[in-house]
C-alpha cells in the first residue's frame, strides 16, 4: 500500500519539475584534502592524521606491551589468527591473553587485538571489514582496541577506501577513539567504545 502511494506521490511531484538536474560530471580529487596528504610514505601520512584524532600508532609489539603494562590494561582478547605473531608475545610480557571472546564477560577484556583490514592515510582511519575480522565486539567493548595493520593495506584517500568496499556487508572506519562532546562541548573519549585506539603496524 505505502509503497505504491509513495512512488505515485514522487512521480507526481517530480513530473512538474521543469528542468531536471543532470548528474554532475566530477573528479573525486576535488574532495582530497591536500594539507592532510602531505608526504610520500602512506604510513607516515596515516600516523600524522591518526595522531591528530588522538589515535596511537605503534610499530612494535614491545611498544604495545609496554603501553598496556603501564596503563594497567592487563587482560585482553587476541584474534586467534594473530596469536602466534602478537598474542603470544603479549602473554610472554606478562599480560593475560584469551583467544576466545565470551559475551557474558564483555566487561573483563581490557584490551582487544583484532585485524584491521585497511587504513585511510588521509583521514587517519582504521578499516574493519566484517568478512575478515574475528569479533566486532572485541574491537568495541575493551578500553583499548589494537588494530593490526599491514603496510600494503594502507589506502591513500577516502575515495580510494570507498572504491574497495567490495562485497562485505559491513565495513566500519574508526577514526580515533570513541568520543562525545555532548556535555558542554567538552571532549570526552571512551563513551561506549574504546578510550584508546591503537594502530599496530606489522
Amino acid at each position, binding site marked *: 500500500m505505502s509503497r505504491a502511494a509513495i512512488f505515485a506521490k514522487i512521480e507526481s511531484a517530480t513530473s512538474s519539475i521543469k528542468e*531536471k538536474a*543532470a548528474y554532475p560530471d566530477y573528479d*573525486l580529487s576535488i574532495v582530497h*584534502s591536500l594539507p592532510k596528504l602531505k608526504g610520500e610514505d602512506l604510513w607516515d601520512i596515516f600516523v600524522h592524521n591518526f595522531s591528530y584524532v588522538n589515535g596511537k600508532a605503534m610499530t612494535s609489539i614491545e611498544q604495545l606491551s609496554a603501553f598496556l603494562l603501564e596503563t594497567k590494561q592487563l587482560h585482553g582478547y587476541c584474534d586467534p589468527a594473530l596469536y602466534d605473531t602478537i598474542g603470544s608475545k603479549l602473554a610472554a610480557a606478562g599480560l593475560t591473553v584469551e583467544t576466545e571472546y565470551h559475551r557474558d564477560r564483555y566487561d573483563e577484556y581490557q584490551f582487544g587485538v583484532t585485524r584491521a583490514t585497511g587504513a585511510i592515510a588521509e583521514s587517519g582511519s582504521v578499516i574493519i571489514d566484517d568478512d575478515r575480522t574475528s569479533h566486532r565486539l572485541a574491537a568495541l567493548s575493551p578500553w583499548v582496541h589494537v588494530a593490526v595493520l599491514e603496510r600494503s593495506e594502507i589506502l591513500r584517500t577516502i575515495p580510494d577506501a570507498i572504491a574497495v568496499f567490495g562485497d562485505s556487508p559491513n565495513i566500519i572506519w574508526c577514526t580515533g577513539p570513541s568520543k*562525545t562532546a555532548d556535555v558542554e562541548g567538552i571532549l570526552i573519549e571512551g*563513551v561506549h567504545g574504546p578510550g584508546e585506539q591503537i594502530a599496530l603496524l606489522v
Partner: protein
Amino acid sequence: MIGIQPIDQYARDISDEKQASVIDGSSKGTDKRYTVLHKDYPDPDKIRKLAASIKDHTLHHLEHYLEKAEKSLIARGVNVHFASTDEDARQTILSILRSHGVTQLTKSKSMAAEEIHLNPFLIENGVECLESDLGEFIIQLDGDEPSHIVKPIIHLNRRDIAKTFLREGITDTYNDDPETITRQARVYLREKYMQAQAGITGANFVCSDTGRLALITNEGNSRFGMAPVPVHIALVGIEKVIPQEKDLAVFLNLLGRSATGQQLTVYTEFINGPRSANQPDGPEHMHVVFMDNGRTDVLASNCKEILRCIRCGACQNVCPVYRQASGHAYRSTYGGPVGAVLSPILFGSRFPELADLPKASSLCGACNEVCPVDIPIPDLLLRLRDKAKRESVPSAGAIPMSPFAHLATTPSFWRTAITMSKAMNHLPIQVAPIKPLQDWLGQRTLPEWHGGDFRKWMKNREKAKS
C-alpha cells in the same frame, strides 16, 4: 492584530543559564567548522555546490533511485518496507519487532525516529526502548526534547545532567564532572546493549547502486547497539538516497566538517545486509523502512531544496535567532533555519500553527553561507512567508503593507510624506499607542529626521550646473 511572535516570546522567557549554554555551544561549533573546512580546502564552495547538484539530481529522479536502492537491498537479503505516514512507520516497526519477539532494544540517534515519536510509542506497546547516544539518553531520562540536530542537549549544562543522573538512579552520588558523567553512562548503557534483542538506527545516506547505508556516530553507540543483537531496523527518510557509493566521498567529507569540525566522524559504518556467515557478532536480520511522512509534499512544493539537507546542524550553530531563542522555540523536531523551512511544510497539517517559524529570521543568510549542500534558506523562508500571506494565515505582530505599497508607488505622496517626516523630530512618537513601535523605540534612539534634504541638495546642485 499586533502581538508578540511565539519565538520572540520564547527568547524573552528562556532562562539566562539555558541561553548561555545555547550561545556558547553554537558559537564554538561555528568557529571550529570554519577553521577546519577552510584549512583543508582552498575553495569549499565548489564542493558545496557539487554536493547540492548531486542531491538535486537525485531528488529530481527520486523514483528511479529509490527503486534502485530497494532492489539492491533486497538482493543483499535485506527486508525493505515503505511507510507513507508517521503512523505507518510506527506500526511497521512494531510489527517487525513483534515478528522477531523483541521486547528490549537500544536505539541510536535518528532524526527520522524523533519525527515520528517512536520511543514513547514503542514503550507504550511494551517494548523497552533506550536511547544510546549520550545526549539523547539524557533527553529520554528527562522526558525532554532535543534542541539541536547534532547536539541534542546543547541547552543543558553539567549540573542539569548530574542532577538527572542522581534522580534517575544512574548513580547514587552527585558528580558533575563531564568525564564522570560519561563513564556512568558507559557502564549503564553497555549492560543494556548486551541485554537487547534489536537495534534501531537511522541512516545518513543510502547508496542506490549497492544499497549500502552509511551510518555515522562519534560515540560508537550504533556499532555497539547492533553488535550483540540479532535484528537491525533502519528507519530512513526517502530523501536519504544518493546515486552511488562514489558520491559518499563528497558527502562524508562535508558532513563531519560541517557538523563538528571533524574530517570524518569517529565511526563511519557501511551496511548492506545481515552479518557475514563467519562473523559471530551483528544482526542476522536487517530491515530498512523507507519513510515518506510529508517528504513527497516537500518535493512537490517550491521549497524542495530543503530535502538536500544532510542534518549537520551548521545552520543552527551560526543562526543568531537560534542562538537567542534555542531549538525548543521552534516547537517541532527540527529547529533553527532548517526547521524554520522544513517543519511547516513537512508537517503540513501544522502549517498555520508553524507559519511564524519562517518569519523568525532577519534573512541574514549566514545559514546559506555555511550549508554544506548550499540550500538557499533565506529564499525558502521568503517563499513560505508569501505562502502564509496567500493562504491568509494570521500572524502576530504583522504590519499591514498595502498602505506602504500605495505610498511607495505614488511619488508625489512619497515626496510629501518624506518632507513632512521632519515634523517627527518634534513629536513624542514614543508614546503613540502602537506596541511594536513602543518596543522598538524603547530600545533604540532614532536618528534625526532629515526628510527631503538630499533631494533639495541634489536639485540645487543640478541648477548650479546648468
